[in-house]
């Protein structure tokens, strides 16, 4: 498939997600009556808010207005802060991207070497140790791990700030929380990918030629093991974005994860839609990059030349 077609498909997914979220949010009840008590608010006031936030007419009418506004670069107004939803989200997005990005790096920094060591000692004591910890790691809910870290580093050792953003020190615990829990899963994937690659005949045949174990590992095992890992990475990044909702709340991290929790609670639909759209965009771009990386890593699946 050509690159242009893939990008087009990405936009199609984006449109589908936006539409689904739009309909789902409106299908769960009138947002105005959820925000204001209809019995104690004048009808005229309710109507005025409807006008202001674009909740007039049928869902389909609202949808058409919404889409046309998006195409003009207007994403609606936040009912919570009475500001442009776009700027409300955009000022929070970098914090989340920073959190997820650092967590992804931590996940790989832990997962790849630990998974490799486990695979190379498969069945051994080290392997069993790693696998046990991995199970604990992904069975542990994020908020438990987060609270445990706060208890240890903030309350007892008084080394790290428990809350907020600003310095590198603020970043450490949220990143540890997300990174460790995802590394627990990623380690297993790395381990099984490397175990599978070790069984390949091309590895045996390199060994039969007397290629050194070091070269076999880096030139034959790793390139083949990369393929399944590249496929699951965007799934894990998606899971990290989902985890950020809880973790940002625990650590008072001002990102979109916390924003979406608050916005859903307050039925601030414009902001929820904006966040979903941005997250979807990030995921689609990640997927696209992964597809491109995959075709570079595996010559058998190279994209058709676009001439």
């Amino acid at each position, binding site marked *: 498939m050509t690159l242009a077609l893939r990008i087009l498909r990405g936009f199609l997914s984006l449109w589908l997600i936006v539409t689904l979220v739009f309909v789902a949010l409106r299908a769960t009840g009138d947002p105005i009556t959820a925000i204001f008590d209809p019995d104690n608010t004048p009808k005229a006031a309710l109507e005025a808010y409807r006008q202001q936030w674009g909740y007039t007419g049928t869902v389909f009418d609202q949808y058409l207005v919404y889409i046309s506004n998006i195409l003009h670069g207007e994403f609606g107004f936040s009912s919570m802060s009475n500001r442009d939803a776009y700027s409300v989200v955009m000022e929070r997005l970098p914090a989340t991207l920073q959190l997820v990005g650092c967590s992804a790096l931590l996940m790989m920094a832990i997962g790849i070497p630990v998974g490799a060591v486990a695979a190379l000692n498969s069945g051994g004591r080290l392997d069993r140790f790693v696998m046990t910890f991995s199970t604990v790691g992904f069975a542990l809910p994020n908020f438990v791990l987060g609270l445990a870290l706060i208890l240890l580093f903030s309350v007892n050792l008084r080394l790290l700030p428990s809350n907020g953003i600003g310095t590198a020190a603020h970043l450490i615990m949220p990143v540890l929380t997300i990174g460790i829990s995802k590394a627990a899963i990623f380690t297993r994937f790395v381990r099984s990918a490397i175990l599978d690659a070790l069984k390949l005949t091309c590895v045996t045949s390199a*060994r039969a030629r007397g*290629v050194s174990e070091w070269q076999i590992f880096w030139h034959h095992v790793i390139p083949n093991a990369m393929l399944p890992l590249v496929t699951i990475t965007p799934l894990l990044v998606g899971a990290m974005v989902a985890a950020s909702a809880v973790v940002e709340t625990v650590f008072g991290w001002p990102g979109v994860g916390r924003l979406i929790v608050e916005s859903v609670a307050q039925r601030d639909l414009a902001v929820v839609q904006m966040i979903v759209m941005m997250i979807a965009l990030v995921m689609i771009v990640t997927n696209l990059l992964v597809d491109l990386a995959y075709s570079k*890593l595996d010559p*058998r699946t190279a994209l058709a030349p676009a001439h």
Partner: protein
Amino acid sequence: MGLSMTIDATDDRICRVENLGIAIGGATPVPLVKDVSFEIRRGDYFALVGESGSGKSLTCHSMMRLLPFQPKIDGRIIIDGQDVWSLNHKQLVNFRRKSVGMVFQDPLAALNPVRTIGSQILETLKIYYPNADDDELRNRAIQALREVHIPEPGARLGVYPHQLSGGLNQRVMIALALLGEPKFLIADEPTTALDMSVQAEVLDLIDELRRKNNLTVLLVTHDLGIVRDRATDIAVLQLGRIVEQGRTAEIVRAPKAAYSKELFEASSVEWPGRNEKTRKATPVCLTFDRVNKTFFASKRDRRNGVGIPAAKDLSFTVRQGEIVALIGESGSGKTTAAKMAMGLEKPDSGAIIVHSSPRDASKKLNMQMVFQHPRDSLDPLMRVEDQLHEVLKVHGWRDRAVRQEHILKTIADVGLGAHVLGRRPTYLSGGEAQRVVIARALLLEPDMLIADEPLSAVDVRIQKHILECLQRLRDRLGIAILLITHDLRVVFEIADQVVVLRHGRVVEDVPVSMFADGARDAYTQMLIEAVPGKIRSSKQGRGAAMTAAFPGGAAMVTG
């Protein structure tokens, strides 16, 4: 046991395996190979033969210490003066680099799919020439590919294994194995995954390198035809033990062990003795009339008309009570023809006429298909009996007793006992499974069977049983069989009519007697020449002439 141990100590034996035992498992090890001893002298072409599960691959992998598990080893393996299992890691790597080269069954799997041919050769060359610069290494790589007769070796360095044909990949693999100039080459089923004419080319190459480089070859194979043609010595393995060994000529002439007798009989090619030069005049079951079919790799190719032809003006007929063999190499369009006959693929143009049933003109001809891999076409969770009942139930057979009677009769038709009915497919041997599949096809009393490579997944002795089964169906029940195969030995054994396909075209359509004696088409002649195990009148002459006409496995660039 076997050879006497009194050979002179100034050793011409490059390899000695002494009472080798291989077992797997901890406290109570399961023995896989038991008390295997043999010796290979310099210059020998030693064949280790046996069916799947006989331990031949284990034995040869243990000679390189390449077993996929931690084994318990008994006895000794001494190669090139080194006791293989007592070497330390450094010595072992050195041993693998200098003393032995190894070639594997599936060349595509044995090469790293995500790295170019060139980078894999250069990586290995750097071991031997650590101080050489890039230009020198590249030249050496090109030289190595030239040694194994790869056309345009320079350009091949930049391609990936999946862009080359199986034959070329195996040549690359041989080149890789010989980079360190070992004197001993272990080839583990090197041609099993290849087409027969390509197989002959690769084996010829090994022969040539053997002469030129003074190589000793250990060939692991289940193909006794190859052994008879090329090997100087044989050891026959059965269930992890050697049942017979000695010089090839002697064993071929008079095999002593019952098992090797059976193996050789099963693998011998019987030149068809039938004399009918004309076809039977029975009613026609299936007609292909100028059928065309082209596959396109992409929409762009379709627009530009650059396709892979699977059928070009394909015309042939199948008559009642005859076995028509559709032969050709992979990619020649055999399977597409079968799929079109079954209606699973639509032809682009031309007509495929399925005639009315020869037994009852008012009925449509009933056609059934038998697939290549019997285990894949049986449900692993259902007992054989239930699977057979299911087929009949779907077709409206209500009465269980009637069904049971019919099933018993059909199972007997394919030469199986009623005991297989209660089993699940896992507990069937390959041959039993394939016969169950055939029985399932026969339940609906077809007039015609289409069998797509029904023998390629099973061992020689079992092939014999299935062939007998097909023959019985033809002779007793008058069923027409369209047999798709790439194995000419099967054709000689049972076919009546032979249709040879090449690039989707029929190049030969003759009764088998005429086919064997003097096929006129050059391609067919090459196929016949490539059959291992038949006595060739002139061993030389073929190589040059044939390779010129059909340059060895031209590169197949996909994607």
